[in-house]
């Protein structure tokens, strides 16, 4: 799977960089697909989530209290944003240090619609790729630009994929 990490300009700010994932040959990021899929049925919550993300980027930063860190396997560090029983949606994300947040797709919360685990697995695979590049120094945090830097394009040819089973969108 070929993809790149993109910076969401409308959400990023001085407190944290907010990023999403654009799969090759797609014209929407994973977060935009999440918004598109749920705006009809859960418009108010989608608007809230968008505003929350903008607050994290611009005003509050990535505080632990915003995340449900029990989601996902410990190794892949995927967690859920604002994942509470009173919410109808669950948005998966991956924190890179304390200043970069990569938001993937999401699902309705279990019990609401029988959520599939695909967005979580996809982001887990991506988080492994990113961790691998961080270990090799290909991705790093630039203090000067206060942004995630390095090569944020992942190609199978470039052997940057996790090698796991290909996840179909």
């Amino acid at each position, binding site marked *: 799977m070929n993809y790149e990490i993109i910076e969401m*300009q409308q959400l990023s700010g001085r407190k944290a960089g907010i990023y999403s994932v654009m799969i090759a040959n797609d014209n929407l*990021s994973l977060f935009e697909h999440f918004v598109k899929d749920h705006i009809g049925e859960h418009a108010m919550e989608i*608007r809230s989530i968008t*505003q*929350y993300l903008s607050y994290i980027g611009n005003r509050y930063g990535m505080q632990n209290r915003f995340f449900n860190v029990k989601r996902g396997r410990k190794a892949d560090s995927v967690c859920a944003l604002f994942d509470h029983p009173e919410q109808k949606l669950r948005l998966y994300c991956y924190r890179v240090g304390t200043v970069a947040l990569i938001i993937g797709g999401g699902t309705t919360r279990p019990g609401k619609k029988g959520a599939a685990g695909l967005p979580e697995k996809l982001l887990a695979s991506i988080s492994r790729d990113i961790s691998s590049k961080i270990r090799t120094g290909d991705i790093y945090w630039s203090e000067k630009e206060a942004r995630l830097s390095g090569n944020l394009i992942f190609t199978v040819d470039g052997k940057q994929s996790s090698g796991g089973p290909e996840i179909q969108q």
Partner: protein
Amino acid sequence: MENNHQGARKYSSEFIADVMASITPLESLQVETRFVLAGRIAGIMDSQRLSNKELAARMGKNPSEISRWLSGTHNFTIDTLSEIAIALEVPVMEFFIPSQPKVIQDVQLTVSSENISSNSSSFYPVYHI
């Protein structure tokens, strides 16, 4: 996808712009109020070095409920805020007052002229010949 740049491509989404533009002033204020209240409660807990678990124990709640309150998504009722205020031993109004910047170090300098004899002099002129 060209692999010739360093750092993430900046991406402006029309989709997200439309969603943000559709947020009404009321919704915006509601979200902001939830964030501010959660932040103030979290700040007071930090200043008292109180964990979620400890606050939960004081209030007879489950720690997961405290996590939910602090996430910034909870719609607090006045009754819940009153409960929290009692547990934290602060007035309810404390949740609505912006936190004061912390004083890292308070240094006090005192100059005393006691016990200095009248004919003593601290400074002498220096002549360069």
